[in-house]
Structures are given as C-alpha cells and as structure tokens.
C-alpha cells in the first residue's frame, strides 16, 4: 500500500476508526471497522492493516533508540542556559565549543577588564574530590607558566558546584579548520612547526607533557602565530591507577589518531610522545591527509602501532619548493618513528633542525645520532656481565645448601634457581645485543623486557633468601651457606632496585620502565 492511496480526508477517518476500534475487544474490531467505514474499502483496509501491525510485537520502537541522546541534549541545553549569565566577576557571552573536558565559553572578566575562555569541566571529571583537587593543583602549576606559544591558564573558579578553568582567550581558528582547507605551503608550515616546537620545548622544560596534541588543540591567531591549548590537562583524564581501560566513567579519553605508539600500547609516555603527535599534525598539514588514516578508527590505531606512514609521491607542481619540502618531510619522518629513542631527543633539538632547514643550512643528517654515553655504556655492560656471573655463582651455594636440605626439597629448589638464572642471563644477553647492534630498538626492547628482568631478579632473591633461612637451622656448614646466600640475596636486591636503573639511565638517558 502506498501512502498516497489514502486521501487526507480519509486519513482523518482512518485515524478516528483506528482509535475507536482499539477501545473494543480484539475479536469485535474487524466487524466494527467494516460497519463503520460506510462502504469505503480504502478506509476499511487501511484501518485493518494498521490494526494488524499494531498487534505485532515490535522490538524496535518500544524504547528510545539512544538513552544517551537525551542526556547529551540536556547538557547542551544547560550549556546554552549559561549564556548571558553573570558568574562572579565573569559575564558569559557565548559558547565557543566543546573542549577536551567540557564546554568552553567566551566570557568577560569585569575585574581585570579582559576577555577570557572559561571551560566548564564536565561533572564526570570533577565528581571525585581527589581528582577535583588534583585539577586545581595542576591549574595552579599551569598558571605559574607563561609562553607566547601556549594559552595561559589563569585560575579555577567554582560556581554552583561546577568547576571552571579560566584561561587566556585565544582568537582565531584551529588547525583543524586549516587542515580541512587542504595542504599548507611548506614555508608557512615550517614557521608554524618552529613555533610549536619552541612552545613544546618550553613546556617540557617545566616538566609538562601535553599528551593530547592534535589540530583541534592549536589555534592560529589572526596575526599568523599559533598557540597550543589545554596543556597538561590530558593527564587528568587518564584512568586512575589500576584500571586498564580506555574509558573513565564512560568517557573516552582523547583522540587516538594523534597518539604515539607507546601511548596506544599504554607504555610510559614522555616528552617524545608529544613529538610523535606533532609529527602526525605536521604531516597532515603538509599533505592534507592523515599519515596512518585507515578505513575506520580501529584500523588507524593499528596502523599507528604497526605500519609505516604512507609517503605520497611528489607531483611536478610541488617540486617548486623542493628543498624546504624535502627537509620538512625528512623531519616529519623522524618524528613518526615508532621508537621514542629514534625521534628527536627533545623539542629543542627538533626546533634546531627546523631552523636549519628554514635557513637552508640543512644537508647533514636531520637527526644527530643518538649515541649512548660511551663511558656509562661501559659501566652498564659491566654491570650486566657482573650480574650474570654473580647469578651463575649463586647457583653453587644454592646447590650445596639443597643437599643439606635433602633431595625432596634440594633438587626442585636447585632446578627452579637454574631455570630463573638461565632466563635472567638470556634476557640480559638480549638487551646487551640490542644496545650494541640496534641502539634505535633499545628503548622498545628495554620497555618490553624490563618487567621480566625485574621478575627474574626478585624470584632469585626470594629463592636465595628462602634457602638461606631454611639451611641456617641445619648442622655443620649450613650456617656458612646461609650467610653466603643471605648476602647474595641482599646484593642482588640492591643491584636490581638501585644500580641497574641508574646505569641504564646514565647510558641511555631513559627512566626505568615503571
């Protein structure tokens, strides 16, 4: 039946008959409809077919499609209701948009006579008092820091239970809008990249990592300069320790499309993760597309972790700005390396490389080779070798002590110790090989194996100490073994917990893995 088959006049009768029929018991409805339709088959058939459809169980329309939709709409209505209101010294003028953790307004600060941006932090973020305090503390720390390339945080305010982050109002449009218009000229992009690298460098020097750098978070002001928004805030959105999910209170944190591989793998994040995100952004600005863009978000995430970025072939027209473009491409390539250690060591180093490209002094390698400190590397190697030797030697007192304890306990104990020692030595050998033959890979391998190395250390410490305590009570040389084993356990513990992290840091400039 086509909708047009029933005239508007008949429709009214259909509606009327349908409702009157519904008031009757089901068995009487058909008769009623035929009688009441006064000979109009069109009306009767339409009503009967609708009644039949009405009887059908229906799993689709019985509940609203999205319970969340209403919640979101209410939040938007609430946001809109704030416009025009006076909150303390601030007059809320308009909604600027949705920021990382809440709605951002433009407001007038009548005490200081200036325009400010006010972010109303979503209740999800601020419900927990501990997090609320942490947020305020972070904001205070941010307020102490000033850089022309970073939007300054002024203060936090509370109105009616809502927590607001008050910061510098930055006029202009986001780099997202710029990306949408297509590729950016290399010369202009280079200048932008230098400003961003310098701003990042300044923040990193203060120990603040952005963690959610993306085109939406960078504003190009009318004077052509750029400013980064929301510095350091992403950390506050991280899951509390112990939870390993991507969501907190149902809120997904940030945009994975700009996250570094180590960030997506939930490995330790440092300043070099920001460099990767900057690389994705610069790539997008240079080529007008995402370096890892897959068919869908999941594919993009996989590509960031596993695949190399696509490099579009240069067409004849872009060759005009050859040197600059090549220089930029090479720098972006370096920023997009999977292993943090293979990127630039710092944003300052990146800024320097960009400046060299800008003034045409490029030519050498983009990245100064990341040579491990040779002195420290020697110590690190010595420490690894000494630990291996020590572990092997430790097997001797464990073996003898095992004999005193009897075969039932001694043999399994010795075998367990042997397995652990073989594991520990193999892992250290692997690290030693990586450090010497593939320094670029070291960081990644270190992060991957550190936990296992630590585990073998501690199992061995436990076995040695346990054997020592057990054998102390037996006759004769038992005491001697006990003392040797306990000293061995303590030494291993100190080596694993203190010396190893220190030598690694000295040699490779990286923190211990956890």
């Amino acid at each position, binding site marked *: 039946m086509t909708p047009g088959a029933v005239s508007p006049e008949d429709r009214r009768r259909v*509606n009327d008959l349908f409702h009157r029929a519904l008031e009757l018991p089901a068995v009487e409805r058909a008769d009623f409809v035929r009688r009441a339709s006064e000979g109009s088959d069109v009306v009767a058939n339409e009503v009967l077919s609708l009644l039949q459809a009405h009887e059908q169980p229906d799993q689709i*329309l019985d509940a609203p499609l999205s319970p969340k939709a209403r919640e979101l709409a209410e939040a938007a209505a609430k946001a809109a209701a704030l416009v025009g209101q006076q909150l303390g010294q601030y007059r809320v003028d308009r909604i600027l948009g949705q920021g990382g953790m809440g709605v951002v307004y433009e407001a007038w600060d009548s005490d200081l006579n200036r325009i400010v941006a006010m972010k109303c932090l979503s209740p999800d973020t601020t419900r927990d008092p501990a997090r609320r305090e942490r947020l305020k503390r972070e904001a205070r720390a941010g307020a102490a820091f000033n850089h022309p390339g970073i939007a300054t945080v002024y203060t936090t305010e509370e109105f009616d239970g809502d927590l607001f982050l008050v910061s510098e109002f930055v006029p202009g449009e986001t780099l997202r809008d710029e990306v949408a218009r297509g590729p950016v000229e290399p010369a202009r992009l280079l200048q932008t990249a230098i400003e961003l690298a310098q701003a990042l460098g300044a923040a990193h020097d203060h120990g603040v990592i952005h963690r959610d750098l993306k085109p939406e978070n960078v504003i190009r002001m009318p004077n052509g300069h750029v400013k980064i928004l929301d510095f350091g805030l992403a950390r506050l959105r991280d899951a509390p320790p112990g939870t390993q999910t991507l969501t907190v209170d149902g809120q997904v944190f940030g*945009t994975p499309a700009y996250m570094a591989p180590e960030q997506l793998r939930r490995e330790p994040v440092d300043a070099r993760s920001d460099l990767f995100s900057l690389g994705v952004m610069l790539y997008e600005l240079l080529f007008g597309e995402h370096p890892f*863009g897959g*068919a*869908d*978000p999941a594919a993009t995430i996989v590509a960031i972790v596993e695949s190399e970025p696509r490099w579009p072939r240069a067409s004849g027209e872009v060759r005009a700005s050859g040197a600059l473009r090549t220089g930029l491409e090479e720098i972006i390539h370096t920023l997009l390396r999977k292993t943090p250690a293979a990127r630039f060591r710092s944003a300052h180093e990146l800024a320097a490389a960009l400046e060299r490209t800008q003034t045409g002094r490029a030519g050498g390698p983009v990245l100064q080779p990341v040579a491990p400190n040779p002195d420290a590397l020697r110590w690190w190697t010595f420490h690894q070798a000494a630990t291996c030797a020590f572990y092997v030697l430790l097997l001797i007192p464990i073996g003898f002590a095992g004999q005193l304890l009897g075969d039932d306990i001694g043999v399994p104990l010795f075998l367990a110790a042997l397995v652990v020692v073989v594991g520990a030595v193999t892992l250290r050998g692997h690290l030693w090989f990586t450090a010497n033959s593939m320094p670029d890979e070291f960081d990644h391998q270190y992060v991957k194996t550190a936990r296992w190395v630590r585990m073998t250390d501690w199992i061995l410490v436990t076995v040695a100490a346990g054997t020592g305590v057990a054998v102390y009570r037996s006759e004769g040389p038992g005491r001697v073994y006990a003392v040797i084993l306990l000293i061995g356990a303590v030494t291993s513990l100190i080596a694993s917990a203190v010396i190893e992290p220190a030598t690694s840091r000295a040699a490779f400039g990286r923190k211990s893995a956890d």
Partner: protein
Amino acid sequence: MSDPVAVGEMVQEVYTELHRIAGGYVRRERAQSVQATDLVHEAYLRLARHAPPRWESRSHFIAIAAIAMRRLLVERARARGAAKRGGVQVQVTLHDHLLVDSDRAALIDLIALDRALTDLAAIEPEQARIVEARYFGGLTVEETGDALGISPATVKRHWVIARAWLVRAMTNSPES
C-alpha cells in the same frame, strides 16, 4: 506553549544545517577516531549556540536535538553501507555503543526506518515529529507534548498509530 508554525520553520533550517554537519563528520570519521557521542555532543552544542532565542523550553530543545540525532545516525548508517558496497571493510560501530547499545543496533535497519519516517512525515507531519522526539530524543509523552505544543493525550494517540504505521512500512519494505 510553542508555536507549531515556528517549529516547522525551524525544523527545516535545522535539517539543512545538520545535513551539513553530519556529512562533514562522516568524512572526518573515516580517517580519525571520532566518537559518536562527541559528534552528537558537538552538533547539539552548535544548535544550542545558534538557536538560543528560538527555543523556549528544555524539552523543545531536546525535540530539535532529536532531529540532529536522527540525521547523524542515518548518515553514519549510510556511510557504512556505502563503504561496504565499495568493498571496504568497515567497523564503525566501535564507538557507537555509547549511543545505541549494540544488541538493539543489530535489530534496527536505520535506513529503512528513516525512509518510513520520511514517508509518514509526508502525510502526517505531526505524527512523524512525535516519533522523532520520543524515539530519537528520548522525550516522555508529557515532554513531547510540551515541546510540540500539543496535549499529552494527543501525543499518546498519535504515537500508537504512528508506531503501527511504521511497523507496517518496515515489514513491507522491499529491501528487508
């Protein structure tokens, strides 16, 4: 009480604007990981930003936002369908579960529902708007009445018949 004529005018405007927003998002979403909730949130905020003097009550706003919801979800479903036909493996539902729970989403042919609802709107515009407000916006009977300027009793009557109409349209749909 809202003026139904004004609502009708606004709906047209909102449709045009949302079509644009939804299209842009679907394109963006292909390469990046954009959550459906974020899309809707942003679209709602845009509405809230542009509309303030034009909507009078919260439920009125939610009813308008429901249109945004319908547009966005249908555009997404279409994009998914197009990508599938083009032989591209897509799995865009990754983040949709926050909006629509996946068990239900599997049962719903949103494109067929959208088509049926458009047909219904051609003959019974008020009924179609009620479905939009209740189904896509999650408004209660009372709120829907408030938003559209009609009595709750009328909302209930319209809803029952509109539901039957849509169920029939979707069961007879040639593609299902």
